[in-house]
């Protein structure tokens, strides 16, 4: 087998799980991702119910998010290569974890990119994550917005107007939102509120990483 990172041939371990999973990284390149933390709403490590989520609940914005891993240095290196350098094949590292996500909702809805950003990058990283999961993917959201999120401060992010709008009817559907990194939760909650306005019944979210 070929390792996705170092491109060297390696002998996969003789585990029985090789029948239904595929080893993508060789033992020397194996990335040690850290599992999600305790918070039931956002997976932040520390308390079982974190302060951020407490604030969100007081504002009446309820959204349960399941991050798979924490955004530690190995995860940051992964995201740099996957999202900013554009190595889309590297997402296979998460194949088994993403397949294991239980999707009981009707639709999977990835967070969209703005048209300008999509023209630069030419792929939507959240959509690829959503396509790896077992479920029906629908692109019902669109985005029209200004500056990149990663260049704004926390307060600026929270103040920003809602950039999303819904393009199809979602009335009565249960929806699973998908994004790559959960930082403040504002993006997912803005998308969720637009979907709720459009009549979606139940909304939850899955992200690959939870930043700490």
């Amino acid at each position, binding site marked *: 087998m070929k390792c996705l990172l170092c*491109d060297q041939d390696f002998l996969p371990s003789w585990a029985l799980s090789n029948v239904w999973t595929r080893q993508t990284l060789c033992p020397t390149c194996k990335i040690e991702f850290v599992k999600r933390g305790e918070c039931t709403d956002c997976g932040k490590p520390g308390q079982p119910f974190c302060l951020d989520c407490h604030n969100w609940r007081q504002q009446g914005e309820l959204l349960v998010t399941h991050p798979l891993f924490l955004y530690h240095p190995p995860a940051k290196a992964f995201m740099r290569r996957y999202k900013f350098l*554009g*190595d889309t*094949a590297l997402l296979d590292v998460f194949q088994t974890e993403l397949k294991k996500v239980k999707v009981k909702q009707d639709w999977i809805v990835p967070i969209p990119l703005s048209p300008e950003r999509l*023209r630069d990058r*030419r*792929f939507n990283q959240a959509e690829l994550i959503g396509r790896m999961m077992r479920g029906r993917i629908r692109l019902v959201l669109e985005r029209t917005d200004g500056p990149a999120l990663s260049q704004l401060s926390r307060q600026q992010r929270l103040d920003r107007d809602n950039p999303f709008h819904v393009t199809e009817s979602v009335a009565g559907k249960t929806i699973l939102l998908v994004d790559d990194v959960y930082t403040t939760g504002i993006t997912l909650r803005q998308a969720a509120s637009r979907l709720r306005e459009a009549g979606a019944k139940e909304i939850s979210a899955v992200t690959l990483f939870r930043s700490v």
Partner: protein
Amino acid sequence: MDLRKRWIPDYQLDVSFEHPVESRPAVTWRCQRCGKLPTRGPCTCGRRCYYCRHCLMFGKLRTCDHLVTDPRPLDPVRPDRHSELHLTVDQQRIADAITQTIEQRKRLLVHAVCGAGKTPMLFPGIERALCSNKRVLITTPRADVVRELTGHLKRAFQQADIVSLFGGSPDRLKLGEITISTTHQLVHYRTCFDVVFIDEVDAFPYQADRTLHRYVRQAMSPDAALILLSATPSVRNRLLPTVRLMRRYHGFPLPVPELRVPYTTNDVLHWLQQHPAKPRLVFVPRVEALKTWQGVLEQQGLASETVHAADPDRVQKVERFRRTTGILLTTTILERGVTLPDVQVAVLDADQSFSVAALIQISGRVGRSADFPEGEILFFANDRSNAMYQAVHQIKRANREGFQ
């Protein structure tokens, strides 16, 4: 931006670029920049889009991208003379062989021991090349060697346009009359160098990575002269026509490694305490061993510093070590390209994972300056490996050959 003989992705091209450009698809059945096979990837272009995973660091290339260049020919090279040079008789012999190879556009391996003064031997050849309208490339796998060579050449050739290319250098994508480059940076260049020197051909990663060989071959013009320089050439490289120089420029023999088999920690400490006024370089086989040995030395009251490849301030640490007389614990990254006056070297666990070439190069760190031509090089080991004995044997043989 001058793009002649260089191919870059169209999205990196300035909007203000006014010259006519020639373009070609960036990825066909293989990547047109690095030559590796591409991978299928999602893309908004709507076609079957492939991208190259091997040269991602230079910017992503997809099937729907194009590589562009400026088709005009290059300007002629301005002739330049090197500053005054004092070569020994042996060095002059090698320099003549290099000049002759350049004239005949052939290939040559220069097998010269560590500290033989390889750089000044290149100057007559470079001068001849510049005077006969040939573009010179000096390439090496190591970025620190590039920095050192740039300094040497800038001092020797005052008028020539010298460009130094390594990851993060300000000269990116420039083309000089003399270009000094890491092998990786040659990926953008096509058929523009008439004389190519490869320094440290056997160094990691050039020797193992075939794509780097391709980068160099693509950057050479079809009838270029190729000169390989090494102290420990591989068997394959030794098939080329070879000139040998087994004597250092200051005329003293190479220090022969002393074996200490078996050894205890106390032997190492005792040796380190023998030379309190000299810089001491200690090689260990693995990164994890750095921490343990640092702890052991600290218990004995010996302050030390550690360097390894992933160390962010490795350049500063080595610079600091140059000025002080301390102990530096290092992995094999310092095996080449460092010149420290009056340094004493020990290799711990020399039987483990050190190759013959690495041990010879490490031994070559000792006694490089003419003021301190002697020094101690010790191999501490608890077992005997072939590499240790071959290293000692080859160093002794080089000394015999140089002084017969």
